């Protein structure tokens, strides 16, 4: 696989991008302003697009250039634009009632990252791939997954939840670019498209929530129990 025979420069570039994306997910966790979430997500998507292009270059997968372009267009520009429109329509700027303060959630996120590192190094050892880049890719993938779930559970504005979901998928995308760059093109493209549809659906739904429930905070969604 690509990650095993990688020249040092490429390996450090990949690591840099992976770590930067992970840090950006912590930016989302440490802020309470919805705009920050969106910018962090946008930059993260740009980084992933860059990663796709680099993997394509070093691994000789020309189709990944296409993936990079689509990632840039869809995840880097279109999705943030759609989320921005939702934000403008809602006139909600930040999380009002925090379940976990940003500092506390950063600590929880750090714990997630440690756990992810533990799992990643165990898995890496079990399959006999102990190269830093493999373990790092696995770790970042799992960390972003866990941080995404953390966002989903401690943030309750509709927009934060959408971005939490997108963060989950960004993590998978980032990890899979490094670990399995040969994954068929069709699937990656369709998943990108699928995300677009998902966010469009979310947008419509958020509008309905606003008009019919009168709020977009999931704390106000408590009629259905038992």
């Amino acid at each position, binding site marked *: 696989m690509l990650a095993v025979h990688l020249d040092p420069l490429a390996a450090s570039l990949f690591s840099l991008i992976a770590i930067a994306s992970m840090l950006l997910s912590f930016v989302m966790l440490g802020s309470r302003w919805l705009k920050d979430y969106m910018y962090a997500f946008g930059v993260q998507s740009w980084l992933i697009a860059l990663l796709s292009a680099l993997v394509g270059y070093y691994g000789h997968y020309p189709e990944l250039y296409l993936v990079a372009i689509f990632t840039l267009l869809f995840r880097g520009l279109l999705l943030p634009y759609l989320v921005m429109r939702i934000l403008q329509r809602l006139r909600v700027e930040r999380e009002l009632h925090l379940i976990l303060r940003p500092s506390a959630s950063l600590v929880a996120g750090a714990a997630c990252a440690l756990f992810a590192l533990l799992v990643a190094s165990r898995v890496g050892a079990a399959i006999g791939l102990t190269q830093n880049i493999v373990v790092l890719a696995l770790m970042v993938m799992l960390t972003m997954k866990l941080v995404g779930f953390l966002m989903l559970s401690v943030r309750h504005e509709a927009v934060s939840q959408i971005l939490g979901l997108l963060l989950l998928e960004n993590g*998978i995308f980032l990890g899979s670019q490094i670990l*399995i760059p040969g994954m*068929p093109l069709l699937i990656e493209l369709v998943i990108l498209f699928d995300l677009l549809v998902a966010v469009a659906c979310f947008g419509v739904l958020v509008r309905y929530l606003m008009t019919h429930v009168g709020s977009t905070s999931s704390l106000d969604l408590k009629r*259905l129990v038992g």
Partner: protein
Amino acid sequence: MTFELCVIVIAPLVAILAAGVPPRSRVAEYVNLLASLAVLLAALPLPFRIRSPLFYWGGYVIVDQLGAWGMLCTAVVYFLASIYAVGYMRLMDRPKRLVNFYALFAAFAWTMLVAPLMNNPGVFWIAIELTTLVSTFLVGFEREAESMEAAWKYIIVVSAGISLALLGTVLLYWGGSLVLGPTYDMTWQVLRDVAPRMNPVLLKLGFLLVLVGYGTKVGLAPMHTWLPDAHSEGPAPVSAMLSGALLNTAMLGIVRYLAVTDAAGIGLLPRTALVVLGILSVFVGALFIVRQEGVKRLMAYSSVEHMGILALGFGFGGVLGVAGALYHMLNHSLNKSLMFFGAGNVMRRYGTKEMPDIRRVLSEFPVSGLLWLAGAVAITGAPPFGTFLGEFSILRAGFGSPNVWAALIMLVLLIVIFIGFLNHFRAMYFGRKPETLPAGRWGGGWCAVPMWLALVPLLVLGLWWPERLLTLFTAIAHGLGVPS
């Protein structure tokens, strides 16, 4: 075979178009009904005519017996729900929105009919994700605060859960790529072939993630939290489709992955994990059935229970377990449609979802009330209905499997559910007369006919397990790698 397949795939698309082109609700209604009939007629003989899997579109589409069986269950529910929807949705008195409803309804059916055909686990994941996106709008269709809440919970919980399945898929692809080289076409068969050489740690991790991911969509406890809300807040025909068709479709994914881990021979972990989730679902179902007040939530928790039973059947394994689970799949689809139809009628008539306000059902619904009552007896797994035979086979499979403890717990919980479920019906049918008389309307004949169409086959399947079905199930079990 190709012709039937084309009908199944194209008919719902025609219905979507017909809903949009002349935006008249009557046209949309009847075209959707016709489309569902066409799908049913094409899907009924399909599982029996396939000998070996057929492939189309460069191997991306597979038609095998297991998938065809899933499509059959979906087609049955789609047809019944389409008849019911005619009567039920007209009560809404908003002809303009009916057009949207039928377009979404047909699209929902289409995504569920297409998902079992996907040969690439990645594309299967996309199809399952699409079912969520379409059905969210059906769940929130009534646009009240409750239904919006249910729709939001549904899309968030299920999307988050199913992203775990994507992670699992990626890990399994990675595991395969360590054996087969960086680029290969991942199909169910390729995964099974490569599984024995795949690293067991990756395989187990991948399977567990996939199990939790698709388990969320199936509604296995403790990932079931979206299910009671979505099932109880959507319009009744949608609830029937969600419960009778969608859950099965997602279950097929778990079954196919289970065949992969079976082929690898990595011990009992995958099966035990499925069995534990199954028992947990039956347990949660039992608890919430006993103390339930909402009539549709009662049915929803019963779905959690029945999906638990299906998980147990596939988890116990063996020809008996698989056959019992597949048989139960169809019977549950028929039975749960019947139950949601009855619940919809009662809800409309009494104008409430709360069971304490629903009394003396028989004096309001002399005939269809009896059908509903019979369905209630059937859904608890009592003879002489098909659900009994299915659950009985699963129990027998359980006593022959390494997980005997689960079969014993299941037996006890089934008795609890029998008492708890029927107690609600006793109260609704023979309880004290309410002070206020019910004033709402109900859908009439359109809403009664599908109840007959569901109950009669359910009874027939309970009295007679057709030989051809048994050979079909045995073939599917062997196809999944069960030794004979």
